[in-house]
């Protein structure tokens, strides 16, 4: 079936603008994750949803970052009043879920490259 999709693939924003990044996870996947990847670095965790519940948002760098998954499927990462340091690739990943004692690999989308000018 279809993998994780993200839109837009590229976004250029002027400093101070708000942006919204969309993630469509694999159908039926319970868990959804957002990561931020700076150039030349590994991804860094931002936030995690299980169905519609945001269970962990410890990685969000500031209160300008907000994520939601209202119906437990599509998720949106919103960044308000963008700053130059927000320039990065934003990756979304989904996984089937979590069963006690069983951990699943995560399936990543292609990412949205955000450039703040």
């Amino acid at each position, binding site marked *: 079936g279809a993998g994780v999709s993200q839109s837009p693939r590229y976004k250029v924003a002027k400093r101070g603008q708000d942006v919204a990044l969309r993630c469509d996870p694999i159908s039926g996947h319970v*868990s959804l994750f957002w990561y931020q990847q700076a150039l030349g670095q*590994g991804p*860094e965790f931002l936030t995690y949803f299980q169905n519609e519940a945001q269970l*962990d948002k410890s990685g969000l760098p500031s209160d300008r970052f907000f994520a939601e998954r209202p119906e437990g499927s599509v998720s949106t990462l919103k960044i308000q009043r963008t700053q130059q340091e927000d320039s990065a690739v934003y990756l979304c990943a989904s996984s089937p879920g979590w069963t006690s004692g069983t951990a699943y690999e995560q399936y*990543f*989308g292609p990412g949205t490259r955000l450039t703040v000018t």
Partner: protein
Amino acid sequence: SQQGEEDPQALSIQEGENATMNCSYKTSINNLQWYRQNSGRGLVHLILIRSNEREKHSGRLRVTLDTSKKSSSLLITASRAADTASYFCATLISSGSARQLTFGSGTQLTVLP
């Protein structure tokens, strides 16, 4: 912050040679995963090794895990030009509601034809 550190940061080899990448991490883990990322693309899961496993194979990939040293290695045998990519190790720490992967900074592998 990055939990793991990959070594080396960059590796260049000839097609047909083996490539070995190492990863060290800091805290106790549930499992360790290796991912590949081609330039400008998302990450692709390669292999997962649980904390109670020591070695795992998948095709041309061999992963080892030493929890006493908090380290892992990824061996790619008989490398091909198509293996050129960045390789990341990622550790899963399950604590409370946390299910996040923590990635290292990656090894850039170049396989020369």
